[in-house]
């Protein structure tokens, strides 16, 4: 286990090595939150609530959704694709560890770094600028933290899946970009799932994406009540378990027919 913990530390060091990325990240996230704040305020106008959410809940939803994104979002799929394309993955196969688990740990290292040096201070700044409703109920915070862990796992698994597909397509930058847009839209980052038309909501109930952003944000803003919270977390757990299967299968096939590119 020590080696996996060590990997988190290494990732921390790597994040610190590139400070410009860090600063520009803060800027991009602030602009996004600001833009959506004004957009939703304009949509709400003088309406009290839409789809059962008040304007205050909505702006809190948007801010927390973006701050949570800083934790679960990473470019591990891109990294895997690159390592496969450059043939670097060969090096990973001569190491006595599980490559996918190691990548997950790198993602976690990145997530923890951004959560502590980026989301938390960022949230304090946002609080001074826009009115945001924070729950005072410790249970909400606990459930939110739990949901956030699962949203990291689901997003990570989807990233691993897209990354591994490079073994079969050799160049799948298009797929990686498409995945990013799909996740931003269907995870509820841009628009809460309850705002989609009924038929679209039904389809999305059978997809893992809302477990990434919608569930933790709804828990945080206390828009879910009672058994809805438990069901939402269970939804995440089930998807984490389901996604293990295709990853393992594709990984085994990929290892069998691995072609190391570039000599």
């Amino acid at each position: 286990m020590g080696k996996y913990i060590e990997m988190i530390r290494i990732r921390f060091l790597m994040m610190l090595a590139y400070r410009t990325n860090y600063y520009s990240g803060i800027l991009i996230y602030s602009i996004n939150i600001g833009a959506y704040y004004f957009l939703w305020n304009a949509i709400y106008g003088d309406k009290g609530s839409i789809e059962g959410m008040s304007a205050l809940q909505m702006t809190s939803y948007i801010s927390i959704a973006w701050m949570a994104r800083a934790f679960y979002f990473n470019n591990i799929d891109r990294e895997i694709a690159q390592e496969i394309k450059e043939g670097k993955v060969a090096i990973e196969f001569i190491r006595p560890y599980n490559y996918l688990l190691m990548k997950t740990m790198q993602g976690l290292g990145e997530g923890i770094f951004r959560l502590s040096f980026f989301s938390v201070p960022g949230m304090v700044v946002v609080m001074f600028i826009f009115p945001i409703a924070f729950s005072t109920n410790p249970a909400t915070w606990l459930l939110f933290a739990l949901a956030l862990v699962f949203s990291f796992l689901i997003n990570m698994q989807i990233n691993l899946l897209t990354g591994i597909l490079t073994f079969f397509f050799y160049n799948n930058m298009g797929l990686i970009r498409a995945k990013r847009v799909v996740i931003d839209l269907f995870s509820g980052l841009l628009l809460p799932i309850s705002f989609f038309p009924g038929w679209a909501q039904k389809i999305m109930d059978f997809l893992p994406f809302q477990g990434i952003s919608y569930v933790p944000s709804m828990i945080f803003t206390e828009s879910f009540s009672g058994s809805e919270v438990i069901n939402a977390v269970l939804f995440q757990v089930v998807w984490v378990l389901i996604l293990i299967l295709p990853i393992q299968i594709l990984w085994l096939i990929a290892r069998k027919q691995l072609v190391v590119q570039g000599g």
Partner: protein
Amino acid sequence: MENMIEVKELRKEFKSHSSRSGLKGAFRDLLTRNYKVVPAVNDISFSVKRGEMVGYIGENGAGKSTSIKMLTGILTPTSGTVRVNGMDPHKEREQFVRSIGVVFGQRSQLWWDIAVQESFRLLKKVYNVPDDVYNVHMNHVIESLDIGPLLDKPVRKLSLGQRMRCELAAALLHNPPLLFLDEPTIGLDVLVKLKIREFLKEMNAKYNTTVLLTTHDLSDIEALCERVVMLDEGKIIYDGQLSSLRSNWGEGKQIEFQFADTAVTKHSLQPLLAELDAAWTPGNRQNVWIANVLNEEHVISEVIGRVVAAHKITDLKVHEISIEDIIRNIYEEGITNG
């Protein structure tokens, strides 16, 4: 002595598609593709004993890297068996890779953006090396390779020679009994090369480390290996002592004449070597010609005597045929001509 590496009838085929020509062909390729099965490694067998240092040589595309990748468990063989250190590299991967060290000259295995010592620290954890063992072993390695001052620098700031020494240290961090080196001295200057060679010899003497070395620089092989395995088009064409390679194929000497008269031609020189079983080849300048002769006293004296009597010369050199020439001859003419 036990065998460290045992390879039997090892074969690896790659499926490669050939593109049709022209725009029409490109459209047809969208629907169906022509596949060709190409064997990169073609039923090779050999074994390496513990503590041996073996040179594994061949031209580009001869199948060296592919076979190394099968030996290290990166690629699965199409057929045949591999036993390395008593294990199947592919099936018992995690257990197996603990017993090997690998250096790929063309790829870095250190983390690019962080200090070398952080990479070492991670590898130490990955291989579960206890502190006391690590300290004794690595202090020695760091001192021999002279990389102490580089440890706190990020890898991207190192020069190639500095990086290569760090790579070697990283590969030996867990003191593996078997070391694969894939072109470790590519692009390095003479001093670094010498340092790396010396270090490898020392490791071999101290820990009885088995080394399999591929390189295009034959001086590496001459300095380190007693035995060579030579590959061509996926097949082993020579497996044996480096010294017998020289005695079997390198018997002759080359006498290089530089003539005062630039008008000398092969035609005018040819009669001088009549009945002597020797041949002329052009040198690197217009008035330089090389006589390839047998390594026998009377032949050498006779050739020099006849040439000097017939033409004025400005320079004369006698060379032994180098390993490089021998290997080039083998590749050009095939092993049967020996």
